[in-house]
């Protein structure tokens, strides 16, 4: 932590420093993390090829997304942490404004307005918030003594609540919860008292009834009911869960072999290349494949925590911790819902499910993580 003070004292140029740094550090890359991500995305493409019905175009498109995502990650890693800290409130404001814009000008489908269309280019402002939320809360707390006092905690909760409620109005419960969680994780890292955490947990349980009664829409209730008893609606909402459990269970220890999963190859498994891709993996590669995937995820998460612990600033530590925890939430929710542990919400299996948006957002997060890992090792800017 001695560097911390030095960092403040040395605003000057020290370019000669960087020449002595390893190439990876100079490029602001965290090699272990990069290696793990490469392994994961490579494995993901393998599974995706099978899950998408062995269609080469789908694979190529996902490859292009990955290429784009790695570029974004690389770019994000180059930006100095101080800039993130300084810019985050402005991005936060922009994000909130866009979310308000979605309410008035948004486009969407199936009763939900989630998209903004600007010059023919459609994007979801909520994606921006996924990254900006932890940055902003961390910005707010980084200049205060930790653990934060109650009024700062309340201010943070407001910061978290504003975009979350806006997203909830779209309505997009899953994303709202994920974004709220990424902000709350920062608070958790900042060391708010256990009494708050336990209290919030109790409050959440207590509010389950009014939320069920007044907040959840019918389709959301249906998902929860289906989770509790998938057999009640075998051909409708329960179909997905029954088929995905069958796919996972029938994989056994060894799996049916790559491209040989009958559940996925014969179209019994819905959404096999997106949200339910873990079922394809579990069916074709068996428990062994699931263990490999979980090991990869665990190593990435542990590396993320390692980066957080070794961060040179409170801001970096909180951001890295939050990003890593949020990444884990994706893993847990997706693997849990496909296995019938959690209700079906639209959460992809990170870096394996097909789709561009989530991959780019996640990799941008890993870029920030790398920025945290490398920001103080060389030049400050």
């Amino acid at each position, binding site marked *: 932590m001695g560097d911390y003070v030095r960092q403040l004292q040395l605003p000057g140029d020290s370019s000669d420093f960087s020449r002595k740094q390893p190439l990876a550090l100079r490029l602001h890359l965290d090699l272990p993390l990069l290696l793990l991500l490469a392994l994961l995305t490579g494995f993901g493409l393998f599974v995706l090829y099978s899950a998408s019905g062995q269609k080469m175009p789908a694979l190529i498109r996902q490859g292009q997304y990955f290429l784009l995502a790695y570029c974004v990650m690389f770019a994000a890693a180059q930006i100095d942490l101080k800039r993130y800290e300084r810019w985050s409130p402005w991005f936060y404001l922009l994000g909130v404004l866009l979310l308000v814009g979605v309410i008035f000008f948004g486009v969407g489908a199936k009763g939900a307005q989630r998209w903004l269309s600007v010059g023919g280019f459609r994007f979801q402002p909520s994606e921006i918030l996924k990254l900006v939320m932890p940055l902003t809360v961390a910005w707010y707390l980084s200049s205060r003594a930790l653990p934060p006092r109650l009024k700062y905690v309340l201010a943070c909760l407001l910061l978290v609540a504003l975009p979350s409620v806006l997203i909830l109005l779209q309505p997009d419960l899953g994303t709202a919860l994920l974004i709220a969680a990424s902000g709350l994780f920062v608070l958790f890292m900042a060391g708010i008292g256990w009494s708050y955490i336990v209290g919030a947990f109790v409050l959440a349980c207590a509010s389950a009834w009014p939320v069920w009664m007044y907040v959840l829409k019918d389709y959301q209730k249906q998902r929860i009911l289906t989770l509790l008893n998938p057999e009640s609606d075998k051909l409708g909402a329960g179909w997905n869960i029954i*088929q995905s459990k069958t796919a996972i269970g029938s994989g056994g220890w060894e799996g049916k072999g790559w491209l040989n999963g009958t559940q996925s190859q014969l179209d*019994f498994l819905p959404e096999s290349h997106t949200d339910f891709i873990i079922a394809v993996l579990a069916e074709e590669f068996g*428990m062994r494949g699931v263990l490999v995937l979980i090991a990869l995820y665990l190593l990435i998460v542990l590396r993320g*925590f390692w980066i957080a612990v070794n961060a040179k600033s409170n801001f970096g530590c909180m951001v890295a911790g939050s990003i890593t925890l949020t990444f884990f939430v994706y893993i847990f929710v997706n*693997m849990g819902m496909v*296995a019938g542990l959690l209700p079906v919400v639209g959460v992809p299996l990170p870096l394996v499910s097909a789709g561009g948006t989530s991959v780019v957002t996640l990799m941008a997060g890993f870029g920030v993580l790398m920025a945290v890992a490398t920001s103080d090792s060389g030049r400050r800017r």
Partner: protein
Amino acid sequence: MPQHIPLKDPGGEARLFITRILFSVLLVLALLGVILARYYDLQINDYEIYRTQSDRNRVQLQPLPPKRGLIYDRNGVLLADNRPSHILSIVRERVDDLDATLAELQLLLPISESDLENFQQKLQRRRPYEAVPLRFRLTEEERALLAVNRHRMPGVTVDAQLVRHYPHGTLFSHAVGYVGRINEQEAQSLDERDYRGTFHVGKVGVEKFYEDLLHGEVGYQNVETNAHGRVLRVLERFDPVPGADITLHLDFALQQTALEALGEQRGAVVAMDPWTGGVLALVSTPGFDTNLFVNGISSADYRALRNSPDVPLFNRAIQGQYPPGSTVKPMMAMAGLQTGLVTPETTVPDPGWYSLPGDSRRYRDWILKIRGTGHAPRVDMHMAVAESCDVYFYDLARRLTIDRMHEYLSGYGLGKRTQVDTTNERPGVLPSTRWKRDAMNQPWYPGETLSAGIGQGYMLATPMQLAAATSVLATRGQWRTPRLLRSVAGQELPNEPVETISAPPAYWEAVHESMRAVVHSARGTARKIGEGIRYEMASKTGTSQVIGIAQNAIYVEADVAERHRNHGLFIAFAPYEAPTIAVAVIVENGGGASAASPIARAVLDAWLVDDTEPVSRVPEEQTDG
């Protein structure tokens, strides 16, 4: 640079972060443990369950319906075959807007209300990827229309299926019967396994009676399907065993002759080979096109058949119960001889009427209204049969008594089902004192014995029973159960006599002789049909009253409404010396036996004479119904 520098307690903050990260790591490990436990549970503990479920998902046991056995006449003319029929089905899952698709289909081809109703019912029971039939029997034109427009209607499919077809339309409607779609009630009584994949079952007649033979055995195939139910490959296959092809005793030409001879009249003809019991012809008019029933008759067509005053669906040959009238007289004569009450030489005085001792009521002879007197001053058995003298049989009946009459006439199969191999046969009535007590809870009156003696009153018989009884006369006492089925898959079925009436040959000869005189004598009641005949037959005419005639009224044909006119009956076997055919004919409201006898002659001619003048065995119309 920020002005407020957090220099509060860097060491404390670092410890705080480490604590929180450590807690996070523990939380992550714990939650991953939960996930792993869940996957372990699914993949290792319950592996067998899900493996089975996945196989069941993937592998479908598909029934392969057997081909229904064909039905031939005795000469190999096809009476029932199978033809591909095209079915329009809809796969719900692949249709975007079902109502729009249905509306569009209705513009292309006729879809009836009942089709739609049926479809909607089935739609609720099937899974979304299963095809639900909407219209059966698509025509060539409809199929072409669908083929052109199908690209606009995803989920609409046309499949071919083998369906029963009756090439001769109405000709064999009552002889062969028909199949129809399995209804709810039948679905419950049929073996579910045997009828998986089969849509039709025998409903009436031979088709129903020999259902087990004709149906065959269902086959199965294990197929790998995708979630949409499309078959990807066949893993295993057990071929179905097709139903047996059966040959009937029926003769196409004889059947056709009988139908033509009956023409527009309501009636029935049953012809039998007396030595085998084989049914050579079974006609009931009017008939109907059995093809209408195969894929569900339209309610308009059904109503028309149902409400017709001629009741075309009623099989007069086996369901029609008529007073046999004078056709029982040869059997009565045999009973008289057997009991010793008469000899061929016994004579009875005939004033044209008969009355019971001590009773003034006169039982008239039918000749009375024509001649005003009896057949002759004294009548013997020969004359009594040939000229159908009632008075002779009134006297015989009285002396025989009703219960002995019952005993002797049951040897000819009257009063009970003949057990012919078809459905819905009725037993007729052969009265006795006991029968009347059981059926009507009334005592038997002596006058009723006289009516029974000439085949009137309570006595009822079906044309099938009369043909079988005629066969017993022809074979001198051998009762055989009438049979439509001649051979199964080329294997002939023997039909030995079940019971035999034993009587001295002289008795049979006397009765046969008197029956020969019906046609072949100057005063026989059917002498008119003897013109130009090239063989000899033994026969008996009969007339049965439809309504009771008041005691003193004289029956005048012209005054009676057509539906109240007497039924005409005629039984015969030929050739006289060595009979090969026995026939029974009834013409409803024909007025008298003269309506029935020419029909019998035509049938006998067709059987006995037609070798010189072959009848075309090709059906006249072979249009697809």
